[in-house]
């Protein structure tokens, strides 16, 4: 084979391979929609009212039937009770994706006490609000992750403290 012909053949092979890879990637992207997460409400005030109206989460793009964990990402410098500094997030809620890959979840009272209000617990299992160290005000990232698919979606939630009146 002449050098020019060989080069032409090589170029066409690379082009075909590139098109094939592109098609595969496109197909994959079509098969697995990007995971999404929404938080409601997007702004919360740390008070007992949260127990009546807990933060809730909706997501999509997960594997049907899989469990989804929602973690609060811990910003540098923020201390969460009993969570070692090496851990970058803490689980605050969980749900299960339906046949469409969508889930709904809300924070349980225990999670609100533990991670938002950061109370201590009495030996009788009651929350001790006198020893609470509420999460500092700020905008926090929440990350939903599929237990099997590893699909990840993020959203933010602003945390505020009650104003003194």
């Amino acid at each position: 084979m002449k050098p020019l012909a060989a080069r032409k053949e090589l170029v066409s092979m690379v082009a075909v391979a590139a098109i094939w890879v592109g098609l595969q990637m496109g197909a994959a992207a079509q098969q697995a929609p990007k995971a999404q997460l929404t938080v409601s409400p997007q702004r919360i005030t740390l008070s007992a009212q949260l127990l009546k109206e807990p933060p809730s989460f909706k997501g999509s793009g997960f594997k049907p039937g899989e469990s989804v964990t929602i973690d609060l990402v811990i910003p540098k410098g923020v201390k969460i009770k009993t969570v070692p500094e090496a851990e970058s997030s803490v689980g605050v809620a969980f749900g299960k994706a339906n046949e469409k890959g969508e889930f709904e979840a809300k924070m349980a009272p225990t999670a609100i006490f533990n991670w938002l209000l950061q109370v201590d617990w009495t030996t009788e299992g009651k929350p001790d609000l006198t020893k609470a160290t509420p999460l500092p005000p700020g905008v926090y990232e929440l990350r939903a992750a599929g237990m099997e698919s590893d699909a990840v979606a993020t959203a933010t939630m602003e945390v505020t403290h009650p104003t003194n009146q």
Partner: protein
Amino acid sequence: MRIRGFWGLISVALWVACTLLPARAASVEVTWVELADLTGPVAGLDVPGTMGLEDYIKDINAKGGVDGVRVKFTCVDTRYDVARALSSFKRYRREDSVLAIGIVSTPLGKMLKEIMGKEKMVITVPGDGEFQAHIGNFFTWGPTYQDAFAAAMDWVLQDWQKQGRAGSPLVGYLAWDSPYGKEPLRGGKQYAEKLGIGLLPPEFFPSGTPKHDVYLSRIEAAGANYVYVACVDPAPTNIMRDATAMGLTKKIQFISDYWGPTTLGVGTHPDAVERMVIVSFFLRGEEAQSHPLIKRIWSTYRKEPIEKMNEMYGNGIVWGMNLEAALRDAIKGVGANKLSREILYESYQRLTGMSREGINGPCAYSQTSRRGSDQVRFYRCMNGKLLSISDWVKTPDAVALHSW
């Protein structure tokens, strides 16, 4: 030529040494992850249990590991929060060195059962009978909740007959409103019926309930002779406090499941818990405090008087003994370098009959059993102490009586 021959000899010797000596075993480390509720309503049982396991693992490593394999102990305080536990489980499931996980939450166990599917891994759990009904990854610490309840019903009937009373006893049931609180009746109810015992409608209450008068009043009005209590101490002690104040302990015999008062609780509230009977799968009272292995581990790693020990500590030691024996079996089978979750899972099923030096009954794990043991003892709270009132008793199979 002489020099080449010398170096050749050295090379061969080195090769032989590297091949024959278990050089890599010394560097192998496996991890046990404990997802523990060190804070919250079940901390009273989980803190001492976790301490016992941690100390026993320290002891394993102090002796050079299990046949050279060291064990890393990682503990997460899940604060009675399934979301935190599930997220931590997801994290540690990815780490190859993690060969087994201990959990305390009954709802978490039920979720993980679904998540794990056919994946093999040892996960130790408190006493949910569902894991005996559907054999898989979950190994209970002792007899299941329903088996212990059934053994208590046997005791009730014997006690009733010993008193020469006619007819059948009426038994009330007072428990946390949780999957754990409901578990003893899944098979236990059928066992009580089989014995001819009248079981009153169960009363459930949320953990953290300050007063139990309303539930106790209903049970008293229904004419209970005995009441079975299923919640974690100090909740049973608080129930007894309320029952004593209502004058019920004079006419009703209260029995606690195995998470009832330990010596520390009995000593703190002796009047409240007086006469309560506890069905236990681990040694309690002075039997635990004077046990040679428990004493040695406690004094070596806690350096406090044994009177400060909660007896669940001994049970944590048993978790460590199980791990040590299973690791030894696995290493014997495949070698230190080929340890895996599945290999350890197989080894746990070969611990059948293993002695835990009397802290628990013999191990009952097998290919067809996920029960940590199938034996219990009975204790009675008397004058601020826990006195043994029986030898080890085989528990009935109440799991088989439920339609799963």
